[in-house]
């Protein structure tokens, strides 16, 4: 976790220096969070918004409407995980669209550490994946329907196996219909040059703006 004692000016400076491979106290703090097992991103701004990293043993829900390009944010987390030799599973629930691996590789993902599976009903079809620890990070993209029992199962198994499960929804999340099983709920709204991140559930933050150009600059 990033402590509040970190001064905002050095933090900004740390970001800029971090992009140039220089580690400062603030950037090392983020690195420590990730070294502790958290799933950080290649984007320092996103890491700061996530209070360092996504916590293992929990579930996060992301509102990422189709065509907004916000899965690039998820990909920056996947890229960071594979770079740290963690095994990642991406469950593609969109039947009409196939993944295009060269684009993933070009964004810094180590394809040797990533497996894809096509399934709109992940909990039903991929139960063994959630019963045995093999993957460190599981991304469920566009699940057809996740009922309360499914969410409870995912949260319980994520905690038991100490893995993180990211659920990427094809719509913006609403605060009206809560989801008590997700530790963090974040909406990603497309802007002209990037995205605006808004917390629906989780640590209170001001909306964060992330520019497209910042995402993979550190990894490439």
């Amino acid at each position: 976790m990033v402590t509040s004692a970190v001064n905002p000016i050095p933090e900004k400076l740390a970001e800029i220096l971090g992009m140039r491979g220089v580690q400062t106290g603030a950037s090392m703090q983020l690195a420590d969070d990730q070294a502790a097992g958290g799933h950080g991103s290649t984007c320092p701004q996103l890491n700061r918004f996530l209070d360092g990293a996504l916590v293992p043993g929990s579930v996060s829900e992301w509102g990422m409407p189709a065509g907004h390009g916000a899965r690039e944010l998820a990909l920056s987390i996947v890229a960071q995980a594979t770079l740290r030799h963690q095994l990642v599973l991406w469950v593609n629930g969109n039947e009409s669209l196939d993944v295009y691996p060269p684009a993933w590789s070009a964004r810094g993902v180590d394809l040797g550490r990533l497996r894809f599976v096509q399934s709109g009903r992940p909990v039903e079809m991929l139960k063994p994946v959630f019963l045995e620890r093999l993957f460190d990070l599981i991304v469920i993209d566009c699940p057809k329907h996740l009922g309360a029992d499914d969410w409870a199962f995912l949260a319980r198994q994520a905690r038991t196996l100490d893995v993180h499960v990211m659920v990427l929804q094809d719509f913006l999340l609403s605060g009206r219909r809560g989801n008590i099983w997700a530790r963090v709920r974040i909406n990603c709204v497309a802007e002209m040059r990037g995205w605006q991140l808004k917390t629906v559930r989780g640590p209170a933050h001001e909306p964060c703006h992330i520019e497209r150009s910042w995402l993979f600059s550190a990894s490439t």
Partner: protein
Amino acid sequence: MFYLAIQTSSAFNPETLSPRFMSWGDGREGDATTWIIDLQPVLPYWMQQAGLVGQAGWQHVRSGHFHNFLRQLLPVGEGGDGVAFLDANPWRALLGLGVMRERGLCGFVSSHNALGQTLPLECSWQAWFDHAEQVGELWFAAGRERFNLQVFRRQMRQMHQAMERLGVRRPMDLGAMNAMAIRRRYGAALHDLWLLTTAAPKTETGLIAGMTTGMTTGMTTGMTTGLTTGLIEETESPLFPWQSWQQEAWIGVRRHLDAPLMEWESIEALLREDVDRLCALLSKQGGERVLSLEWRVVFLDLSSLSIPVRFRHPHDLPAESPHHRTALLQACYAYRDAVPAATSDAVDLGVYEKAIGSWELVVTEKIHWSPVIRDLFGACVESSSGDWRRHLQEKLQHMENRLPVPLQAYEVNSSWVPGEGYQTGISARSYADSESEINVHGRSGREISKGRPMFLYSRPRPWSQPPNRSSVWEFCERVMEKWWSAGGKAIQRDYYRLQDDQQRSMWVFKDGAGKWYVHGMYN
């Protein structure tokens, strides 16, 4: 398809490579038996192993990666007398093997290189008709429709005489002959053999990618239907008379139930016991890995159902004793697919006809697993216990065996065309691992791919909406398709990133004819 024809005088068990193989001839040409091995059932497994070996740096030739790996598994070369030929159909594999023997060649040749592509056609007519005679006998034994062995032999003689009169010495010299002309003159059977002879093997990349995708996606369906009968994929007729080698010992267990069962929860406990009994039978033989089981279920109305239980990779059944989670999960998926769910309504109404009265569990496909891989010099290489990549791969294979759908790994290749820039992964190579990246107008493959979307439609969708002035446009790239594989037409595509009124970004292109298509989404 990968069919391997092999002949060696040294001890060789074809079951170490695949559960599907047949012997050819009766040792008429010496003591060595010729085996034809269908590698299809274990292709994903061997390809993953090939990927592992490749990454481990045991061999450095990228092209023909799988074939080089296969060479290490075969007891050929090393100064011995063994010969092996790999082709997409068993007939051409036999012909290629025959030519190698005629010329006194030793070792392993694959039809996916230049030498192997022409070798089968260079066989003599004598060898061709010798093999045709054996095929005819097998067709006759298998009861091929409208097939008369005497007529077939007469047609063969006629064709042979015609070739001698024409001075055509080898099938290669008759390459221009239309298959229908053979049919008109010498009948359907020789027409089929001629089709097999002239069938051009696919390119290596396409073949491997296609086979892997086909295998992994259609495992539970395709494998149990057409593929197991030894058909040639491109044609729908059973051209080659495949006759699998029959196991000498029947490995199976039977159970008669005291009370009929309908629900999986009740069946599971008893099935677990039976799998355990099966393990006891398997462990007597030692080193067996199971690829498929057949669960023959007999219902109370005496109707029966055969439920195939398949594993994506060779599965060590005894290692999971006594819980047998993997086998039971696959049995559960197969049972639920094959038998409609037993509803409480059926029980309430006393409809028990489809309750199970007895069953039989039989091992149908297995390989004799040998954890030994030969290095380039023929010495045995034991896998290092500390090799994390192998350890990880084993865990992934284990997980894949438990799932109803495959876990896909991809690797990038050197093609710049969007639909061809990757293939189902052997070693899951990324751009970071690429030894020779493509370079188009000074841009590397990584740079090109970075501007492309993460998700593509499997086929570009026609886009009827004309470009709107209010939309945000950005020119991305101009892609020229490979003119040599596009029928001589240079197809040009201009790609744009388009953002519509709802802020959705699409990857659209305009082809040479001015038509618009949506190819991907920036999700």
